[in-house]
């Protein structure tokens, strides 16, 4: 296995705030080439103070539309992340798995429920 690369989120974002989808996209774009190359990435959240789901959806969630789950499990890990933020990431990951597995069926169910016109 290749040597893991530590990806410091703070350095990519340029500060302690991980609160925008655009910044999440930049993190995503940095790690995808590594994953395609089969290089394990360790996402370090050291010095990150505020983290939201929109950032994580872009940075990590969308990986589930690009790589098989087991490949992500094999190559991606996190460190320096407190328990609250890990809980948020876990929800983002679970949601992403659902989203990419069956987005059409999910939408169709709602389409049947709605219909009030203003």
């Amino acid at each position, binding site marked *: 296995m290749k040597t893991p690369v530590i990806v410091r989120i703070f350095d990519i974002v340029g500060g302690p705030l991980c609160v925008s989808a655009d910044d999440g996209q930049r993190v995503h774009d940095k790690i995808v080439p590594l994953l395609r190359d089969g290089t394990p990435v360790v996402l370090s959240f050291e010095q990150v103070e505020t983290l939201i*789901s929109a950032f994580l*959806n872009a940075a990590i969630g969308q990986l589930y*539309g690009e790589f098989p789950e087991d490949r992500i499990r094999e190559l991606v890990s996190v460190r320096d992340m407190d328990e609250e933020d890990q809980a948020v990431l876990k929800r983002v*990951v679970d949601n992403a798995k659902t989203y990419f597995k069956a987005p059409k069926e999910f939408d169709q169910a709602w389409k049947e429920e709605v219909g*009030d016109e203003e």
Partner: protein
Amino acid sequence: MIHYLPTIRSDQNGYDNLADLAKATAKLTVDRLELDFSRVSFFDANMAAPLGAVLAGIADRFNAVEIVNVPQMVERILRKNGFLTQFRYLPLEDSNRTTIPFKRLQRSDEGLFEEYLQRHLKGKGIPRMTDGLGKVFKQKLFEVFQNAVIHSESELGIFVCGQFFPQKQKLDLTIADAGIGIRDNVRRYFKGVKIGSVDAIRWALREGNTTKKGKQPGGLGLKFLHDFAWLNKGRIHIVSRFGFYEFNAGQESFAKLENDFPGTTVTLEVNTADTSAYCLASEASRDGIF
């Protein structure tokens, strides 16, 4: 034209009254609005955010806006929080340190929003909020702000304002976007289905539902907000176009406004005395995340 604003409380009726202002002025262009406050017996300070959003829309059509006849008590609150200074009133010092000032930001201003929260949530009579609660509260406000950035398409910006109530141990913060509203986003997503505003809010609150297109999943921000309010015993209002949603004391309610309120406004009321440990879920361990 002259419009008499009634009392504005942070509730369904308050939003209905602001939506009525938007409706009454909808055709006003290159003209003048005199907003008369003489009938305002009370004004909840956080409601300066949605009022600011409505007035920005009016001013954007080249109308001059003037606010007149503001009762003394209301004037004091709205000068302290800086809302009236936009309309040439003098600022008034907030000696009690309980205001969370009115601020108009642009969608690209996440950094300024951080500064705003840093400056006004800490050290302004809010000593009881624990670090853990403060962090999670801030996180939820960023979720709301980012929702406005991604979905509102607001060219007028994002309007924020709040108020701390030391006796009640509550803090209200309101974020208004003057954008297209949840309804129009959902209608576009469903390609022309005529969903109403209330159902659109109901849809958006369901975990995993998002109108984002492309490769990024979404649909967690509002769910997290709801979970936080539930744990904190706080309160949420979401108002978007004709839709009104309230989460309070563990109960959800939906209602339809009389008039079309411009954009989306979210209010989060946090119970600052809450000393709970704020890990929203404990099942996550680093090994089991992916």
